[in-house]
């Protein structure tokens, strides 16, 4: 565990207590079974914003607390423990980061205070296919009068069905595969020509496919040179999401460990069997290793260190591998009860896959790590 300031410790403790009281796993179950079309509980999101969580990385001058990414990671880890569905990743992390890194003062003034107050849902729209591939952006943005008109598709946009603000990565030059020629745009959620299709995802969260037909967009940052900002934004989103996944894996592990200590078969608790003990020890080892990677990535972002990309790929890949290992073992070690819908194991298993797919899975990040290392 990273050394925390008093403020960070307080926030983490507050998050722990709010999550266990107000947003246990049953909250996600309720969200799923009630068919809530938003993909998150708006009342819960208001409470989260009131506690300042939506503005943790937003500087004070724009209405936030400016506590940074490690602090946001602490909150994400706690919400990850109970699989809390909220716009923290889409809005408070990804979209906010893009605005912070590339926004003009006017753009920041327009959106960041609203985000910090929990009054605007914002998201990042990057991928256009089944897999994360920021270099392959094809959605076209053509000059139109004083602005740009966007046409094309975006897929699996987090909270994309309800977002008030979409930050869309589009191609203003070159062809799919080129890093140059990409520009970020601000697009209103209710813009003319935008069609949003909400999807029913395995993890019960709100994702959507978006279709753009000559939709008006305002440039965020500079035209044609958006890839670096996009990449930096994605890295911060990856590290934050890895923290959430670490939280989910930690909870899945602790629940499983409790079961090993209480379930009796053959006249003894099953945790006395070495075959299970060694697997539990392996999970614990991987949890500790992954925690180091996640905290290092988040701290590097706060220090603006020069190894942010490699650390973020490391954290996301490790967190994905860990989440699969632990959630699969959670099902297997619980046996039959772990296969039932009334048990939480399946929810952790499903979330692990969905979280991996967002912003690049293990395979993507191992390849990127190798490229960053020069081989």
């Amino acid at each position: 565990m990273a050394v925390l300031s008093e403020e960070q410790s307080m926030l983490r403790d507050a998050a722990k207590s709010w999550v266990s009281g107000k947003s246990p796993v049953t909250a996600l179950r309720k969200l799923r079974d009630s068919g809530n079309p938003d993909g998150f509980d708006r009342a819960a999101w208001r409470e989260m914003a009131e506690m300042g969580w939506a503005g943790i990385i937003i500087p004070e001058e724009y209405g936030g607390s400016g506590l940074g990414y490690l602090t946001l990671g602490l909150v994400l880890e706690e919400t990850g423990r109970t699989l809390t569905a909220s716009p923290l990743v889409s809005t408070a992390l990804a979209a906010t980061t893009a605005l912070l890194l590339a926004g003009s003062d006017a753009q920041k003034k327009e959106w960041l205070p609203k985000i910090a107050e929990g009054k605007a849902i914002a998201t990042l729209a990057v991928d256009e296919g089944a897999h994360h591939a920021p270099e392959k952006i094809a959605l076209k943005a053509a000059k139109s009068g004083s602005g740009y008109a966007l046409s094309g598709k975006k897929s699996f946009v987090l909270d994309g069905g309800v977002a008030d603000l979409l930050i869309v990565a589009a191609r203003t030059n070159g062809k799919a595969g080129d890093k140059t020629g990409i520009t970020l745009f601000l697009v209103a959620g209710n813009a003319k020509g935008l069609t949003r299709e909400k999807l029913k995802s395995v993890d019960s969260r709100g994702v959507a496919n978006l279709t753009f037909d000559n939709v008006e967009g305002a440039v965020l940052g500079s035209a044609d040179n958006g890839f670096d900002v996009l990449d930096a934004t994605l890295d911060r989103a990856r590290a934050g999401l890895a923290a959430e996944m670490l939280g989910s894996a930690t909870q899945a592990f602790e629940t499983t460990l409790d079961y090993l200590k209480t379930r009796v078969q053959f006249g003894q608790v099953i945790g006395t069997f070495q075959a299970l003990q060694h697997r539990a020890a392996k999970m614990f080892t991987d949890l500790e290793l992954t925690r180091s990677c996640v905290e290092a990535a988040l701290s590097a972002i706060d220090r603006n260190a020069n190894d942010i990309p490699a650390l973020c790929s490391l954290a996301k890949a490790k967190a994905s591998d860990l989440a699969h290992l632990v959630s699969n073992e959670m099902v297997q070690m619980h046996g039959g009860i772990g296969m039932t819908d009334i048990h939480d194991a399946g929810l952790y298993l499903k979330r692990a896959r969905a979280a991996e797919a967002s912003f690049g899975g293990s395979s993507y990040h191992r390849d990127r790590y190798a490229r960053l290392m020069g081989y």
Partner: protein
Amino acid sequence: MSAAEKLDPELESFRAEARAWLSENFPQSLKDFDVVLLGMIGQRPGGDAKLWTDRMGEKGWGTPTWPRQYGGGGLTPAQARVLSQEMNRIGAKNPIGGMGVMMFGPTLLEYGSEEQKKRHAPGIVSGAVRWCQGYSEPNAGSDLAALRTQAVDKGDHYLVNGQKVWTSGAQYADWCFCLVRTDNSKKHEGISFLLIDMKSPGIEVRPIRLISGASPFCETFFTDVKVPKENLMGPLNGGWTIGKRLLQFERAGLGGGAGSAGRGGDVRGVDQIAKDYVGVDETGRIADRDLRARIAQHQMDAKAFGLTVQRAQTEAKSNMGPSATTSIMKNAGSRLQQDRAELLLEIMGHQGLGWEGAGFTREETDTTRAWLGGKAVTIYGGTYEIQNNIIAKRILGLLDHQ
């Protein structure tokens, strides 16, 4: 088919007979259609499916090696293989299946009284009677012998009280083969094997919803259920041996089919699906090299498994019934099935993570559901860990932890 079989004139004459019978009796509308799947969702076959079931049932070829006197086909194992080849050739699937055929029937033939065989075998052979398995209980999973469902001797009947769980298809079953406790003073030696009519008063069945959304299993509650004494199979307090024998047949069925059965909605190879979703590089290789290496690893594992199934079949030709090596098949096969599902999900990316509705193809959501449902294969029929224990103890001769 080995070269020796090809040259055997008696077998070739049987092949001609089977071919002629099939061409006359197999409805073409059922090509590649699995009638048994209807039973798994509680439907009785109708139309051509019923016709095909009735014809195969009458001929006894749905249970080809079972003795003629109980309605079976009375074929030799070699003839049964020829029949299976001829059916495969025309896309005809065996319409007689389920737990009665795979698990209970072979056990009945070995341990049932003459009267019990005559009473219960024909319903299995014809596909008319569906069986479910009353084994596990909430506190008796891997430690099955800890089961507590009581059957108390009341003179002319047993009075059964207790709860079973994971009773597959109990909501559709006509009969249940059940392990019950008839002596509380001993563990394994206090268990009996009882056949229970699911229409008996006092039985309540509640389906269990799984993480895949499906409900193939139930909780089954027995409250003062009267079971006639004649439904005890084998000796009183001698049910554990019979119950274990039945599990060997179950494992043989579960693992052996993993290479082809137990798949999701996909019909193409993993490599082909990967090319579609991930793309190829300029030389035609799957573009994601990390993924490509793992697909190759999986396909090698699948090949090794297939070769092992073949080898086991060859070696078992002279031998009746499954051996302890079936435990290897179950773990290898179930791990393979799960690896395949994980790979497919990774290959499909976001498209593999839909639950239902717009934005996903049927193949995609079927793959997702099969991924989730497939997590059960290392749990049911003896967990992965229990199978490894069996290998370590029975095959390797390693002693229990002292």
